[in-house]
């Protein structure tokens, strides 16, 4: 159960090893990795800079992680988010969830990403090949994605059935 905000890249294999080594109570591990997309031609992204709100970022990520743990029976969870200047293909974010059953791991990972996308204070600025660029606009569908978690019980019926 950890959140990290860092400039350095992360090593997914090493993080998974750290989470699951020596443990026999985990049945399902889901990872989500978000990466910088490049695009092509004049509007290709050459650089992506991530600004964040030190202090609040960590607090928000911990709050979201705690809420995921409250809703699903998680054996482990991890959120790593990078800031600073990144290039196409670079990792931005890693979410890992471990549970006894796959549905809890999948749902918790999606929940973490949906809330991270709309609540964690990060802002992306793009630089494009033609010199244009600027701050990335928030996507309305990210807000829409949140609505599916409204009113969800501590454990969803589907997960309960799988226990």
């Amino acid at each position: 159960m950890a959140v990290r905000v860092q400039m350095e890249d992360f090593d997914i294999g090493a993080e998974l090893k750290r989470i699951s080594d020596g443990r026999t109570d985990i049945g399902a591990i889901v990872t989500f990795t978000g990466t910088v997309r490049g695009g092509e031609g004049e509007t290709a992204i050459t650089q992506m800079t991530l600004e964040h709100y030190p202090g609040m970022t960590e607090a928000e990520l911990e709050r979201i992680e705690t809420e995921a743990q409250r809703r699903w029976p998680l054996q482990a969870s991890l959120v790593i988010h990078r800031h600073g200047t990144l290039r196409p293909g670079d990792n931005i974010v890693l979410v890992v969830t471990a549970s006894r059953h796959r549905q809890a791991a999948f749902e918790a990972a999606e929940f973490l990403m949906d809330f991270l996308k709309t609540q964690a204070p990060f802002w992306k600025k793009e630089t494009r090949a033609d010199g244009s660029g600027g701050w990335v606009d928030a996507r309305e569908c990210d807000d829409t994605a949140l609505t599916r978690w409204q009113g969800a019980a501590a454990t969803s019926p589907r997960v309960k059935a799988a226990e």
Partner: protein
Amino acid sequence: MTEAPPATVKLVYFAWVREKMGRAEETVSVPATVATIADLVQWLRSRGPEYESAFERPEIVRAAIDQAHVKPHATVAGAREIAFFPPVTGG
């Protein structure tokens, strides 16, 4: 409104709010007539062209009090740090 003395609060700005403001943070004395985030935004807009530009569309600027998201009607009394920023785009 009571005639309370002005409260001192740290303001922090991020992303294009910071850029339009031309600074990342400042400490201001907020008059006691400012009760909510919406009041604070209205008062800030009167302070100069950079504030006017940053809060040109106040409905899209988000706020946090002491590092927790708040709505425009949130009360600012007792706040140590108030942040203004665009909708977040991480992940």
